[in-house]
């Protein structure tokens, strides 16, 4: 790609990743969450693949696969945390520990320290979606690029 596209991609890639992390992290306060933030961050990866070619990310396939597996296993393991009550029970909500503040009723400005296991699940699903969609785009680019080189 041309110099203009490469320069703008170099500038926009950290901003897009930061915005995706912001959407993932504030999933229990504002519209968003794991799936939406993971898709936003995966679009940043797709922008890099379009601008710099598939060879720039080809040696990181192992990292993407490991990240996706880690996200899936962490999400399933967080379900076992409250197995005394039931599967997927939210035992950290309102308990005062990590992410344990109670929430006042009615409309309020949001507090980041609330909602129990929900932010941890948001991070696990966000990593999973980012690695999965990024790996799909990378595989298409690697397969189709061996003709016209």
């Amino acid at each position, binding site marked *: 790609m041309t110099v203009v596209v490469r320069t703008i991609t170099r500038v926009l890639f950290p901003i897009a990743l930061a915005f995706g992390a912001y959407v993932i992290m504030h999933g229990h306060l*504002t519209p968003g969450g794991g*799936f939406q933030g993971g898709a936003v961050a995966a679009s940043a990866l797709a922008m890099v693949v379009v601008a710099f070619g598939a060879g720039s990310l080809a040696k990181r396939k192992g990292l993407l696969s490991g990240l996706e597996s880690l996200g899936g296993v962490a999400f399933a393991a967080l379900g076992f945390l409250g197995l005394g009550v039931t599967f997927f029970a939210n035992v950290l909500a309102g308990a005062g520990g990590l992410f344990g503040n109670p929430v006042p009723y*009615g*409309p*309020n400005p949001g507090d980041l320290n609330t909602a129990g296991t929900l932010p941890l699940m948001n991070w696990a699903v966000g990593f999973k979606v980012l690695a999965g969609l990024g790996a*799909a785009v990378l595989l*298409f680019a690697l397969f*189709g690029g061996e003709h016209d080189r």
Partner: protein
Amino acid sequence: MIGNLPFVVCMILVALGLWTLVAKRNLIKLVIGVGLIQNGVNLFLVALGYVRGGIPPIYTLAPAGAPMVLPTPQALTLTSIVIGVATTALMLAFAVVIYRHKGTLDARKVRELRG
């Protein structure tokens, strides 16, 4: 019928996708038809949960005294969108491999399951 206009528009989208599946031959156009059906169904699911005069079901800085929209159809639409992405990715991978092997994208020329 004017009151149900959002439902009718979503079903028109599904009917257009169905027409694309019936009448077109190119593999990429068939993928676009399936995508149209998925979009119509997702919009219909979200439109089912509307309460008249409702605000989004979020308590952060929400205006007081207004009824809230139902949250369950939005959660189911999230799952449906992700499954649509998975289906589209697999269909496009098949289309790429078929073009690499057969040299054509016509759906009537790539039949091989016979004999």
